[in-house]
């Protein structure tokens, strides 16, 4: 706790935290540790990138964060909730209301328009149709896709589909996006547009955890974590905007 002008300020709890959390597959001599134990806190509004070679635990980390898998040791919390103490139903609800996923293959349903795709998670959550559509339109607007809301995925470019996927991940109250190589199929300029978009969402208070192989995409994040053999071996933060040093390449 810190004090500002004599007032005690409660630090905001992290939206996502790994408290010595890890995942081991199998038991006995055949047990394979996929992740951890790791300690990671992600605060609301943060953009965190996770890098590391194949098999370093990146996808496991994302699955645990998204409550798709359970840690075998330690605790994973989302918005303060210990995921292991929640019932399966409560976990599913948390996933629908709080967490959006974006994968490389996007998983947009081809038979639904952009708007219907974005509204779907809210409808599944029991939100009245009209309200779900309104929220979806708002989310599409934030990614400048409201104009194309009634197009089907097949009639959109790769970059536009990606925007729709981002809108769906952040529809309604969803505050945490877990993204696994979301720019894999895009050319570099479009990939950078997506990073700019994620950056903007974080600057507006949403949170992104991005798994990527691409260092230049990772460099859009506030923090980059390097995983190796299931552990965080390194972490870099973006230098603060107040630093005025001119970046020079090695001469």
């Amino acid at each position, binding site marked *: 706790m810190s004090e500002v002008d004599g007032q005690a300020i409660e630090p905001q709890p992290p939206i996502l935290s790994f408290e010595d959390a890890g995942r081991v597959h199998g038991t006995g001599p055949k047990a394979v540790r996929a992740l951890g134990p790791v300690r990671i806190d992600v605060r609301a509004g943060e953009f965190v990138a996770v890098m590391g*070679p194949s098999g370093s635990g990146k996808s496991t980390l994302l699955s645990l964060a998204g409550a798709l898998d359970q840690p075998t040791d330690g605790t994973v919390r989302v918005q303060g909730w210990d995921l292991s103490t929640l019932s399966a139903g409560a976990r599913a609800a948390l996933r629908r209301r709080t967490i959006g996923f974006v994968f490389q293959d996007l998983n947009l349903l081809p038979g639904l328009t952009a708007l219907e795709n974005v509204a779907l998670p809210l409808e599944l959550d029991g939100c009245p149709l009209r309200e779900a559509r309104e929220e979806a339109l708002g989310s599409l607007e934030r990614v400048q896709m409201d104009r194309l809301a009634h197009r089907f995925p097949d009639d959109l470019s790769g970059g536009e589909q990606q925007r729709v996927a981002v809108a769906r991940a952040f529809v309604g109250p969803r505050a945490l996006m877990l993204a696994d190589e979301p720019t894999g199929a895009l050319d570099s300029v479009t990939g950078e547009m997506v990073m*700019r978009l994620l*950056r903007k969402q974080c600057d507006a208070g949403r949170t992104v955890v991005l798994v990527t192989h*691409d*260092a*230049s995409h*990772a*460099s*859009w*994040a506030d923090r*980059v974590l*390097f995983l190796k053999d299931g552990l965080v*071996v*390194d972490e*870099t*933060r*973006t*230098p603060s*905007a107040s*630093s005025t*040093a*001119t*970046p*020079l*390449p*090695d001469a």
Partner: protein
Amino acid sequence: MSVRHSLLAILAERPAHGYGLKSRFERDTAGIWPLNVGQVYTTLARLERDGLVVPRDDGGGARQEWRITKPGRAALAAWYDAPVAGDPPERDELAIKILLAVATRSADAGRILQNQRTATMRRLQEYTRHRREADPERELPWILLLDAFTLKAEAEIKWLDRCEARLGRRSG
């Protein structure tokens, strides 16, 4: 970097005096490679000796204006026409450091790779931050340079990852 040809390139547009050349060069290259004005005058003297520039008749001293000659334009065109040689590469301190650490076992190569990756990632984050803040209308030279730096840093990180993978395979 060729100061000679840079000055010829600027003079090819219009005559200029020494200080004007310095500021114009720095503006067009986003201020990344500061030129000292003494270097500009020495280079102008050599260009004059080689017949590539001549002083304009009037003036003199620091306000002396220079203009490019016909042989000067030819030298400039030859410079633009010749692709920059990338081979053999310049002596690369990082590569030498890592190769020697691996070959002589005088240091832990894995640690060097990791330290370097952290530093390069930080540099990359800084480039990205500058790109986010750059005005695409007014700061085009700066943005083009940042693209170049970004891609080089990205390539360096890829190379470090690859070194790590190859060394891991060898020891594992």
